[in-house]
Each structure stands twice: as structure tokens, then as C-alpha cells.
């Protein structure tokens, strides 16, 4: 506490900035953790439900149960587009399976668009974590350098260079680097972890899109 209170104004500003970085990055870490956790768990449950169901309309009526899964969003978009194509032709849903290739292209495009929007949603705020991880140590280092400069200035004025005079100033300065690292290390670790999880989800979305289109095309071929 004495170290924090005894620091100069620039060091204090640096510490406040680092504290804000840390609070925001931890808020993002918590938010992303629960968001990705829910996305993963609900995706698993949705896939179970999807493969057990026989009809798209039965799945569509239950999608709100898996609202946080990106796969649900993909299905919702694909099914919506498929329905639109069928309704546009003025035929029933069953006959939509025998629609032409242009309709399937529309569904494929809507799935791609939904995938992109889900990737954007999942990666939202992660750039702040990357920024915190890369800049916080430097901001802390700046505070340290400034603090050491001030400490040496004080030593020069007192004219004494004993350990009792030098050590407190250096300790005050070094706390900025310490807090910079405290802010940066969890941010970097969380960023790498979330990047990995999001990559897995992207692969799942690609696989689901392919499966969805395969089902639609198989039905066309069967009719």
C-alpha cells in the first residue's frame, strides 16, 4: 500500500490504466468463458437432437432450447432459407427437396453468411485481450522507467546513494512492471485458449454446414 501511495503522479496514472486494462480483460475473460462454454455444451446437445430427429420442422420448433450454440444459428438460417425457396416456388416443403440447384446454392450462401456472423460474434472482444497482453508489460515498463528516473533524481538531490535511499524508489517503480505483467499474463493465456476453442467451433460449423447441404441434396436426389 505504501508503495502505491508513495508513487509519483505518472506512475499512479500508469497503475490506474493498467488496473482498467485488467478489470476489462478479466470481464472479457469471464464473459467469453461462459459464452464459449455454453456454445460448446449446447452444440453437443443440439447435434444429438439433430441426428435423432427425422424432420427439419421438428428441429426448428426446438431451436430456442439451444440458442447459444452456433450450430443452431446455422440450422436456423439454412432452414429459413430453404423454407423461403420452397414458399417462393409455391410448393410444399416436401417438394422443396426436389428443388433445382439454384435453391441449394441459396441455402449454401445463407449457411456461409451465418458461419461468418457466428465467427465474428465468438471473436468479439478478443482483440482487447490481445492488446492487453501485448501492451500492458510495456506500459508497466514505462511506469518503471519513469519511476526510476524520478528516484535517481531524488537520490541526486539528497546526495546519498545508500541502499536505504535507493531501494524504496526502485521498489515503487518496479510495481508498475509487476502490475503490467499481472494484467498481461492472464490476457495472453485466455486469448490463446479462446482462439483454440473458437477454431474447434469453426470446424464444427463447417462440418455441420456440409452435413446440412448433404441432407438437402440427398433428398433432392431421392425424389
Amino acid at each position, binding site marked *: *500500500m505504501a508503495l502505491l501511495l508513495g508513487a509519483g503522479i505518472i506512475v499512479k496514472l500508469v497503475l490506474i490504466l493498467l488496473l482498467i486494462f*485488467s478489470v476489462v480483460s478479466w470481464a472479457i475473460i*469471464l464473459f467469453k468463458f461462459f459464452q464459449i462454454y455454453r456454445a460448446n455444451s449446447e452444440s453437443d446437445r443440439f447435434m444429438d437432437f439433430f441426428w435423432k430427429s427425422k424432420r427439419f420442422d421438428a428441429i426448428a420448433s426446438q431451436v430456442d432450447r439451444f440458442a447459444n450454440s452456433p450450430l443452431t444459428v446455422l440450422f436456423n438460417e439454412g432452414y429459413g432459407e430453404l423454407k423461403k425457396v420452397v414458399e417462393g416456388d409455391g410448393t410444399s416443403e416436401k417438394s422443396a427437396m426436389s428443388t433445382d440447384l439454384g435453391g441449394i446454392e441459396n441455402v449454401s450462401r445463407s449457411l456461409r453468411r451465418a458461419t461468418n456472423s457466428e465467427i465474428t460474434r465468438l471473436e468479439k472482444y478478443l482483440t482487447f485481450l490481445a492488446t492487453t497482453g501485448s501492451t500492458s508489460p510495456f506500459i508497466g515498463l514505462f511506469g518503471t522507467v519513469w519511476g526510476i528516473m524520478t528516484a535517481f533524481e531524488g537520490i541526486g538531490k539528497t546526495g546519498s546513494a545508500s541502499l536505504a535511499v535507493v531501494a524504496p524508489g526502485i521498489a515503487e517503480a518496479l510495481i508498475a512492471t509487476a502490475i503490467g505483467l499481472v494484467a498481461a499474463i492472464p490476457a495472453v493465456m485466455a486469448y490463446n485458449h479462446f482462439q483454440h476453442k473458437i477454431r474447434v467451433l469453426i470446424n464444427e460449423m463447417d462440418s455441420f454446414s456440409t452435413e446440412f447441404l448433404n441432407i438437402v441434396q440427398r433428398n433432392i436426389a431421392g425424389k
Partner: protein
Amino acid sequence: MSARPLKRDTGMGVSFIFSTVIHLTVFLLLALYGSHSKPLKVTETYYVDVVNLPVASPRSGSPSQKGNDSEPAPPPPKASEAPMALPAKPKAGAKVQITKPQTTPLKGKEPAAESATEFAERMAKLERQTEARQQEARMASLQEKNRNLGSGRAGMPGASGKEAGSDYMAYVQSRLKDAFQKTISHSSQKPEMTVRLFIDTEGKLARKKIDRSSGDRTFEISVLRAIDVASEHFTPPPGHKFFEGVFVFRREGILPNKP
């Protein structure tokens, strides 16, 4: 978007509150830990200079002493300035020798026979002799000192200290050599260049003339640069006379040549 929108929780407000609470908790815990921990005691530090510790015998010297650089040699022992010890009063039965009273013991004369006036005269004579001997010793010491000072290091008699010595050629060669070491550059195997230098009475380079070219452009540029660099530090020639010198520049060094 054709699909029915899904109901999702997107807010970060709860996370912010959690994060703030976590940071406050950590800060309070650290503050609590800091208030309970004992403050560090600042003890005075003592330093012992091991290198320059006094030695037992001053004659054995200090380990940090470096030959003749650390301290000048001790001055030669001075002649004893203490008054010469007076001779002891003649004892009874001792013979007094008038001619050499200071060295020979007094024999064969009764002390009672010597009057007080004679004794005082003898003492005054002895003192005069002692003083004369001390003055002689002082003179000898001063003469020795003068002989040592006159070894040539102090410069030529009448020199002001702002001019080079009589061997001005060697002086210029030395300056050129120093500068040439920094600028030397060549592209041929054995470049050799002869340059004639004219230095005015104030020590400024008046003119430089290439007597013989080396044919190596790089080498010649480096030589001319060395001359320019060296000429900035030339001192006036001895007697403030105009100086002309020829120098042969080679890769190995500089040789003077008579003009």
C-alpha cells in the same frame, strides 16, 4: 434474415461486476497482508576497504601501489639539522686538546684550569663549525637537485612551452602517423606517395604538394585526409620559422625525407 431470431444473452454487465469484485478482493487482501507484515528494518551499512587496509610495516608498501605512478619517490635524506651534540663536560683528570676539541677527548689538563671565557669561546667556535657544515650540506643537496632537473625534460632553455622542439620533422611525422592510422585505406598492394608539406610560422599548414603520386586514388585520398586531420594540431615550428618537409607515405607507415 429469413430465420426467426434466437433469444440469447449478450450482455457483459455481469462479467464487469464480477471482474471488479475480484480485483477489489485481491486489492484488499494484499492491503491486509501488507498491513500485517513487519516493516523492514533499515540497518546501517559498514564498508571495509579491504584493498587499502593499512599494512603492518609501512616499508612493505600498499598492495594498491603501482610502481612509480602512485607516489613520487621519497626525497633524499636531508642533512641533520639538529644541533650537534655538545661534548660532555671534561671530567676530572681528562686532558683537554685545544686543536681538535670536537673529536678527541680532553686529556692531561685540569678542568679547573680552563676559565669560563675560554669555555664560552670554545663553544662558540664549535657552533660556528657546525653551522658551516650544515650550510655545506644544504648547498650540496640543492646542487644535486638542480643537476637532476637539468636532464632535458624541462625543455630547451628559453622555450615558451608552446613550440615544438628542435626535431620538428619528427614531431610532424608523429602527428601524421597518428592521423594516418585512422584514415588509411588503399586498393593497391604497395602504394607509396611522397608529399611535401609547408608549415607557416604559426604552425598552420600553408601548402601540401604531391611530389610523387602512388597511382592509388583511395590511398591518396586517405593520405590527404590524414594530413588535414594532423594539421589541425600542429604547433609552431621552433623559433617561429617557416618549415618545409617531405614525407613518404606507405602502407606500413610514414618516413621523413629531406627536402
